[in-house]
Each structure stands twice: as structure tokens, then as C-alpha cells.
């Protein structure tokens, strides 16, 4: 029972991280039917944005009040990167064959990784560390430090922070999508872009908003990851991005709540597989195998994902 409760906590933590990143894949897909494979790098850039903010303004200061400003720095870095990426790389390919933006995404992905790896310590005016290896991430007070103990279940502070981030971001996202004018515009574009234009909705602007929303959540995830793992590196976006994409497909690509459900499901399955699958195929070396096995099983029996894809209805 304790083992189950422990894996529940671990799974929800991991799942929250996947969910925060997965929203970015699904929002963009829902609007432009584009798989932005460079989204994992937006998450990585968020972590580095937070670190840079800390190094520039707060070096050595681990007080809790610094955290919101680090998150702000992360969001600015991620959103700027995502918006530029859309403008420079994707928009010119809007009417190109599907394969073109996909290849572009891989290119952007490698470009961003290499840019951080090679040039992070060469940024002029600032004394940033070399990012060719792991870089320590500031361990902010209150959200890191001694874990809570609930009976035999250990709950890391950073885990609570991560889950809390998902809860707050989901609430914010719900409000944005359902209660704001721009959110309504997004829904209209995702259901029928041409008719949305007839309503006076600027589709180009909505696409930029979709990229920005996804980047914001990925940036928050980048900070959460830095606090959990205690360090960050230029490659961290690859596997996290792949898992989050899996989560988005699992939940139903294009469906925002599907990304949240898919992320949590994937995290829980991984955590439970580590604990409860016995013998050779159990334990953490096999957890990715079980994660992708789950994806394949769901796609065979329910190709539209758990909650069902909300793709554009073309009349």
C-alpha cells in the first residue's frame, strides 16, 4: 500500500511535468495541424531563461520571492523563442507540404540545442557557466529542501511545486480558453479557420497566441524540472519533449484537456511499471518501454486518444 501511494505521488509529479509540456504540442496542433517537434527545446530554453535571470539579478539569493521572477524570466525566454520560431520558420511554410515544417522542426530543435551548448558561456556582458555539461539550478528555499514524510510516503517539496504549477496553469488555461475573447477566437479557429476569418478573427494572430500559450506552460515546466533534478542541460528537452508529445497523442492531440489527462496517465503508468512489474521487465530501465507500449495500445484501440482529438471539421 505504501509502495502504491509512493508511486502515486511520483507518477503525479512526473505526469504534471509531461502535462505542462504536452499542452504546447496540442494547442499548436489544434490550431494549425502542425507537430512542433522543437517544443521540447522551448522547455529547455525556459529552464535556461530562469537560470539566466537568477544569475543576472539574484546570484546567490535563494529566497522564495526570487522564484516568481525566475519564472517570469523563463516565460519571457520561452515565449520569445517560440514566437520567433513561428514567424521565421513555420509561417513561410504554412501552405507547404506537411513534411516541410516537420523537417524544419527537427532543424530548429538541433539549432536551439547547439546554440545553448556552444554559446551559453559566451553570452557577452554576463558571466554564464559553460553549458556543455550539466549546470546546477538554483535550489530556492521552501520549494526545495527536506522532504515531507506522510507515514512511509516521501513527498518532495519540488514535487508539490510541480503539481501545484499544473493545477494553477490548468485553471488559468481554462479561464483563458473559455472566458476571454481571444480564447473564444482560438476555439473558432481550431474548429473552422476560414469561417473564423469571416467573423473578423485574425488567424495569424491566433497562431502566435497558441505558440505563446504553449511556451508559457513549457517555461513553467522548465523551472519545475530544474528544481526537481537540481541541474539542467541543453539536452533535457529531447526526452521530455518526446514523452510530452506521447502524452498529447495519448490524451487526444488537439484537445487541451486531453494533454493534461494524457500527461498524468503517462506519468502514473511509468511510475507504477517501475514498482509493480516484476522480473527482468520491471524496474526503471524498462519504464520508457512501458510508456510507449501504453501509447501503442491506446492508439490501436482508440486512435483518437483518451479524450478524443479535436481536429478541425472541414465541411
Amino acid at each position, binding site marked *: 500500500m505504501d509502495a502504491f501511494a509512493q508511486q502515486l505521488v511520483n507518477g503525479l509529479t512526473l505526469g504534471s511535468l509531461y502535462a505542462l509540456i504536452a499542452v504546447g504540442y496540442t494547442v499548436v496542433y489544434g490550431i494549425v495541424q502542425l507537430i512542433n517537434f522543437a517544443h521540447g527545446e522551448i522547455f529547455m530554453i525556459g529552464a535556461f531563461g530562469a537560470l539566466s535571470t537568477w544569475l543576472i539579478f539574484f546570484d546567490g539569493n535563494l529566497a522564495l520571492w526570487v522564484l516568481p521572477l525566475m519564472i517570469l524570466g523563463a516565460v519571457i525566454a520561452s515565449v520569445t523563442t517560440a514566437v520567433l520560431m513561428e514567424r521565421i520558420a513555420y509561417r513561410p511554410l504554412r501552405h507547404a507540404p506537411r513534411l516541410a515544417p516537420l523537417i524544419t522542426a527537427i532543424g530548429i530543435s538541433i539549432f536551439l540545442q547547439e546554440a545553448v551548448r556552444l554559446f551559453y558561456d559566451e553570452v557577452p556582458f554576463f558571466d554564464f557557466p559553460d553549458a556543455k555539461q550539466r549546470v546546477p539550478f538554483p535550489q530556492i528555499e521552501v520549494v526545495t529542501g527536506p522532504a515531507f514524510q506522510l507515514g512511509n510516503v516521501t513527498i518532495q517539496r519540488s514535487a508539490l511545486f510541480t503539481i501545484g504549477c499544473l493545477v494553477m496553469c490548468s485553471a488559468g488555461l481554462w479561464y483563458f480558453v473559455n472566458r476571454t475573447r481571444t480564447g*473564444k477566437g482560438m476555439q473558432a479557429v481550431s474548429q473552422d479557420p476560414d469561417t473564423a476569418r469571416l467573423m*473578423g478573427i485574425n488567424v495569424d494572430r491566433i497562431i502566435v497566441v497558441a505558440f505563446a500559450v504553449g511556451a508559457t506552460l513549457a517555461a513553467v515546466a522548465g523551472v519545475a524540472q530544474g528544481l526537481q533534478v537540481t541541474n539542467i542541460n541543453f539536452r533535457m528537452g529531447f526526452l521530455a519533449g518526446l514523452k510530452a508529445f506521447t502524452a498529447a497523442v495519448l490524451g487526444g492531440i488537439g484537445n487541451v484537456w486531453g494533454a493534461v489527462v494524457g500527461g498524468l496517465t503517462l506519468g502514473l503508468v511509468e511510475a507504477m511499471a517501475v514498482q509493480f512489474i516484476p522480473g527482468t521487465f520491471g524496474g526503471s530501465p524498462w519504464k520508457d518501454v512501458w510508456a510507449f507500449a501504453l501509447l501503442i495500445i491506446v492508439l490501436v484501440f482508440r486512435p483518437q486518444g483518451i479524450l478524443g482529438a479535436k481536429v478541425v471539421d472541414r465541411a
Partner: protein
Amino acid sequence: MSPMLEVKDLEVAYGKIRAVKGISFDVNEGEVVTLIGTNGAGKTTTLRTISGLLRPSSGSIRFKDQDITTVPAHDIVQLGLAHSPEGRRIFPRLSVQENLLLGAFARKDKEVTNDLQAAYALFPILEERRNQPAGTFSGGEQQMLAMGRAMMSRPQLLMLDEPSMGLSPLMMKRIMTTVTTLQQQGTTILLVEQNAQAALKRATKGYVLEVGSIVLSGTGAELLSSDDVRKAYLGES
């Protein structure tokens, strides 16, 4: 007075296919003008070009003395030109009320709530079902919603693309009566119809389109009594 909408030598192509081959027509304030023609004549293409969803290869479109040939689609509705597209194209997973409010997306004034009431007064069924997802509606109800949504932008000119398509005779009559009501309330209408009889009966002016060209034009009454029209579109021999 110059016409409200003036289309001149309009040519539109899909790649190599020339769908509209240099047509000219105009719509004056207060009129109901109808474009009739068989399948594939280029009626929808014409409307989509006027509202900016398609770009013409040549020709010009003027609306209220402004050249709108290259104005982006999302800026057209603000000028007072609304388009209720072929196939209704309501947003299926949004509620009736959300669909209507999207019709007013471009408006910044405070009278949207009044106009919502006006739309409900025009089609009471929409108010009864205002929280229902629009995708669950029948064809006729979706058509009412599509027209209500277009009216929510407070258009001076309303373009309707085959509003009676696929409807029961009763519902068709209902929709056509609404066209007249809207005209009486001061909206100018450009109506595309396959149901030539019903359209011409209400039209002040009509144009007959055949494979991308206008082959006949005249007042509604003239066209209704024209032998060519009667043979080709009203099923008489």
C-alpha cells in the same frame, strides 16, 4: 449614387482552373440581388473572393466606395459586409450563444447584447437552445444560426450562400421569408441560390452565372419570365 458593392471584371482561378472568368455586377443599397446558376458555375467562388478568403487573379471589388480587393478577410466584416457561407459552417462544438457572439467578434461597441436579443427575436428556437452545442442542430436550425451569426456583425450588406440548401420546403419558406424581413429592416442582400424560383421572386435584380461567366441579367421579374431561365432553372420545357 454609386452602388454599395461593385464587382468589376473579376477573375478567380484555382491553380490552372479558371472558376470565375471576368464577371461584373453591382448591388445597390436596399436591394436583394441574386446570383443563380448550376453546380460549379462559380457562385461560391465569387462570394469567397468578395469576403477576402480567395484572391482574384484580376479585377476589382469596391464596397461603399472603398477598394477592398486586397483587404484581408478578417478586416472585411468590420466594414459592414457579412458572409454566411455555403454549408452553414457553424462552429459545431461551441454553443448556440457562443456562435452568435463570435458573429460580433469584430465589434467594439456595447450594443452586442441588444443584437443578441434581436437575433433571438428573429429565431426564437435559438434562444430556447442557446446553451446547446451547435453541432447537434438540424440543418434548418443550423441555417438560422448561421444567419443570426452573420447578422450579429450588424452588416450593411449580407451575403448568403445557398441558405435553403438541403432544407424541407417548410424550412426553406421560413428562411426565404426571413430574407425579406431582413431586407425590410434595412439590410442589403446578395443571395446565391439553386432554388431560382424562390430567389428571383424576392430579388430586385438577378444575374445568371454559367461556367464562370454572367450570361443573363435583369430584374427578378424579368428573369422569372425569361424563357431561357424557365427552361434551365425552373424545370420547364
